[in-house]
């Protein structure tokens, strides 16, 4: 339990190296492309509050020693950690699901945006294209209006062949313009979470 307060405590063993990096047709998977593009842009700190859709990405990030990857207890905590890391000279990204985004508007409006932090956000989109949970569908409708009202650059990514270009160019823009960016990963890209009744 880390009682001496100074030792690393291992997280539960959800971090295998078994995440798929190629599709059945030999194409790179969305998660492999995101990981490679983050690495190419020196974004090597990843803080997440998990989502089913992110499972393969989280697994392969944990398995990659080039990344420091860990879970935060809450999404706005991750925003704070990444703001601090940026000011300390390290680039990072946060992974969250749509409902997690619903918890961070205050942290965006009072920290990331006014302090000009290039916060890199990946949101796995729940609440659309086959959603089965009304709460997810409703919170999803609040996401883009919040991002728009704050003037945050936002890209909804639906196609595998556009993923690397959008993420690569937008990270560079975020850093160069000192502004947050949100990548909304559509079920069209990731497959989303499917209702299994």
């Amino acid at each position, binding site marked *: *339990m*880390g*009682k*001496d*307060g*100074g*030792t*690393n*405590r291992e*997280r539960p063993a959800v971090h295998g190296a078994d995440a798929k990096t190629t599709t059945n047709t030999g194409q790179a998977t969305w998660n492999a492309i995101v990981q490679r593009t983050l690495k190419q842009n020196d974004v090597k*700190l990843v803080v997440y509050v998990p989502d089913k859709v992110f499972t393969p990405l989280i697994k392969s990030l944990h398995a990659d020693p080039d990344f*420091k990857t*860990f*879970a*935060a*207890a*809450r999404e*706005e*905590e*991750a*925003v*704070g*950690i*990444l*703001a*601090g*890391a*940026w*000011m*300390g*000279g*390290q680039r*990072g990204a946060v992974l969250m699901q749509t409902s997690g985004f619903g918890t961070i508007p*205050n*942290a965006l*409006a*009072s*920290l990331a945006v*006014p*302090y*000009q*932090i290039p916060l890199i956000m990946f949101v796995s989109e729940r609440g659309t294209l086959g959603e089965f949970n009304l709460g997810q569908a409703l919170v999803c409708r609040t996401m883009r209006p919040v991002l728009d009202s704050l003037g945050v650059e936002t890209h909804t990514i639906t196609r595998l062949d556009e993923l690397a270009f959008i993420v690569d160019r937008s990270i560079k823009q975020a850093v160069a313009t000192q502004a947050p960016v949100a990548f909304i990963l559509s079920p069209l890209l990731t497959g989303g979470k499917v209702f299994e009744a």
Partner: protein
Amino acid sequence: MTRTANAASFDNAEVMNRFALTQRLVGKLKREEAVIGGIGNTNFDLWSAGRRPQNFYMLGSMGLAIPIGLGVAIAQPARHVVALEGDGSLLMQLGCLATVAALGQKNLTIVVMDNGLYQITGSQPTPAAGVADFVAIARGAGIAKSAWAADEEDFDRLVDAALAEGGPTLIAVRIDDKPGVGATDRDPAQIRDRFMRGLGVKQAVL
């Protein structure tokens, strides 16, 4: 932190003054340690204790002083980072204590200023006032080096130990209801830019 036999408790900890403690803390920082001032009187008193380029002042995002400090500590492992946070703010983000403990962030010290009040909004009592013990909460979250400061001298000892021995460390202090001294300049971009220069991340001469 060697003193556990006679460790102070909430009940026998002296009620001190936030500005006086902040001055004592800042006076001990000789190695360009980073300090994150939480929203409200916590960062007002940090500002008033003397401008340092390694100070970061929060103007919103209540509860994020510790996460911001953790991020700085991760990015700059050779630099010690102190997060100053109010009791009401910490209540908003208790989960971050577990994150800090899980990472075992050695170069991070947390100071909790506890007067049981939402002082800046009119001194309404927090739901924790007289009920919750932040040191017990922090220990329960996995930060073993957590202690109440019995008095100013004890605070000095705890800070010295935190800076020398490594953490993560949480020091809780009981403070009075005196208002903050002065008020921070509310210019977020300037605060961030100066802080990054203070941390050596931006180096061009302006």
